[in-house]
């Protein structure tokens, strides 16, 4: 490639809304690099759906593309309607952990079950960042947040494992400390079909990090890196040893028939039978 990559190629000329040190910058960069390296000159073959939360602002309205910034938790249902009526377009959902596996959890499971042809990129910062740092379904056990001032007393949800169980065609988890791996996973996911889920574990220095003892974003990213453990190694450990670890890697890759494939074959059948 003669020209060098620049995110500006894909972005509207607007000031980005993220705090300094936010992991959303890294995820946005990884996604746009993946798109660039796959040879997309622009985003005209994509539509982006997102919900409410900081990471839902990654595509909307910053990407020069069609984007639907939906209600909190409802990006996947909206993406379902979009994809079924326009199977030719790549539908990508961006959302946070609260949006995708908190308020929108049911849609996440059912979309994976249906094998809906969308790529969901969930930026997991382990907290409700936009509202100031409340406990999330992904907050580590014991962590202090504004609504768990004595430490969280709930166990966090493993979204990647859940997606595998529910039936996703592709599932990977990386952190913002694994920029290249994350980009490669996005590239791979964009070339596959069916429900694809990438969990991007990320840092929120503003609403989470400073409350749990990190001085800055860099410390958080280092922590993400040091606490990550590849899936192959994690399989050899017991559950207790893994409670403070972030298991990273590719959780599944398979080729179950996708929703748009099965729906379109049923429509053809109905049209044929309907004519008789």
């Amino acid at each position, binding site marked *: 490639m003669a020209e060098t990559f620049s995110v500006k190629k894909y972005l509207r000329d*607007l000031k980005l809304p993220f705090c300094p040190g936010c992991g959303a910058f890294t995820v946005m960069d990884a996604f746009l690099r993946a798109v660039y390296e796959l040879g997309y000159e622009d985003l*005209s073959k994509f*539509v982006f*759906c997102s919900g409410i939360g900081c990471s839902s602002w990654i595509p*909307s*309205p910053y990407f*020069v*593309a*069609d*984007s*639907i*910034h*939906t*209600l909190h*938790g*409802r990006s*996947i*249902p*909206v*993406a*379902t*309607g*979009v*994809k*079924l*009526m*326009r199977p*030719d*377009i790549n539908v990508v959902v961006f959302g946070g952990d609260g949006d995708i596996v908190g308020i929108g959890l*049911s*849609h996440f499971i*059912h979309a994976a079950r249906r094998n809906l042809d969308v790529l969901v990129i969930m930026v997991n910062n382990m907290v409700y960042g936009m509202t100031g740092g409340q406990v999330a379904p992904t907050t580590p056990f014991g962590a202090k947040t504004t609504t768990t001032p004595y430490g969280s007393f709930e166990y966090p949800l493993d979204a990647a494992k859940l997606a595998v169980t529910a039936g996703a065609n592709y599932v990977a988890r990386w952190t913002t400390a694994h920029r290249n791996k994350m980009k490669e996973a996005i590239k791979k996911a964009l070339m596959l079909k069916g429900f694809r889920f990438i969990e991007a574990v990320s840092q929120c220095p503003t609403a989470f990090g400073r409350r749990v003892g990190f001085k800055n974003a860099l410390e958080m990213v280092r922590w993400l890196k040091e606490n990550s453990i590849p899936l192959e190694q994690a399989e050899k450990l017991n559950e207790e040893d893994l409670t403070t670890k972030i298991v990273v890697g590719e959780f599944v890759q398979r080729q179950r028939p996708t929703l748009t494939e099965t*729906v379109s074959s*049923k*429509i053809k*059948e*109905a*049209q044929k*039978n*309907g004519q008789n």
Partner: protein
Amino acid sequence: MGLAKPGVYFWQGNEACAEAAILAGCRFFAGYPITPATEIAEHMARRLPQVGGVVLQMEDELASIGAVIGASWAGAKAMTATSGPGFSLMQESIGYAFMTETPCVIVDVQRAGPSTGQATKCGQGDVMQSRWGTHGDYSAIVLSPNSVQEMFTQTIRAFNLAEKYRTPVILLSDEVVAHMREKVVVPPLEELEIINRRKPKPGDKAFFGFEEVPPMPSIGEGFNVAVTGSTHDEYGIRFTADPLVHRRLVERLNGKIQNHVDEIADMESYSVEDCDVGLVAYGCTSRALYDVVGGAKAKGVTVGYVRLRTLWPFPEKAIKKLAEATDKILVPEMNLRQIFYEVQRAAEGKAKVIPINKIGGGELITPEELLSKILEEAGKSG
């Protein structure tokens, strides 16, 4: 079979709604089973794929209306159907569809509430919810059919209004009208007025303002449309603090409905300029109107009525006219007073507005009960 052929059918109300939707161009339906609306989903599931459309049963009503909104932005006419509990769940997204100017049709087949209430029994308790159910400053278009034929014609009108004004439209039916079977006349296709959303021209960029109803692109057409339920400018860019942008947007969204009440509001009027007793009714309850006119006449009482086909925006002028022509207006409803207060407000004290209410068990206000109340109010009882 493709589209319903012109002719005379004996259909259930819900079936007429589904066939009309297909004729109106609906090609996407998402829903969740709920009595007494389920037959719409079942009928669509069988029929829509035959004309190349998609039906998906979603995990709940939140997802159903979400998928409908997505399909609409993908260029399809789209519909969902539900009843009270599901309608409650959809309210947030109805506000989203209003704010993002997403045409779609929501059918609410009313049953007796609140809560699970009497799931199989008729009620008219969602009238105010259909107007004020979502949060924020909002204007609704709500249609009210009172026969199977009107389940057909008003479903088509619901799509036309949604496309014309780029807004969600609610078809507020009820268990009686949705479950009864009656004759339906399907006119030839060329006689049906079908309205489609106005599309932008190449190079257009303002899809959320400058015009009362801006043109609507679909995703995937190269317009780079940014859709958001947050306050946005004419180009879809978020402005979450600017007072002027918010005022401009929300006043236009309400104005595009409120400024066209005369065109949107539709009603059947009878003897409104010369009557002893006036009546205002809608939906299943209004079916008794046709029976009481003769009975009252026999006792020397002239009945005039306004039968509302559109509940919202409320046709204030027509009600005021009725109030000027008579001293008493009776408002029969299968709820504990909802449209009654609107009639009272619109009557501006020119006539006494009297509620007649009955709830529970799906029991209708019978023509006999209505007639007896009319005669009582006219001083002719006994």
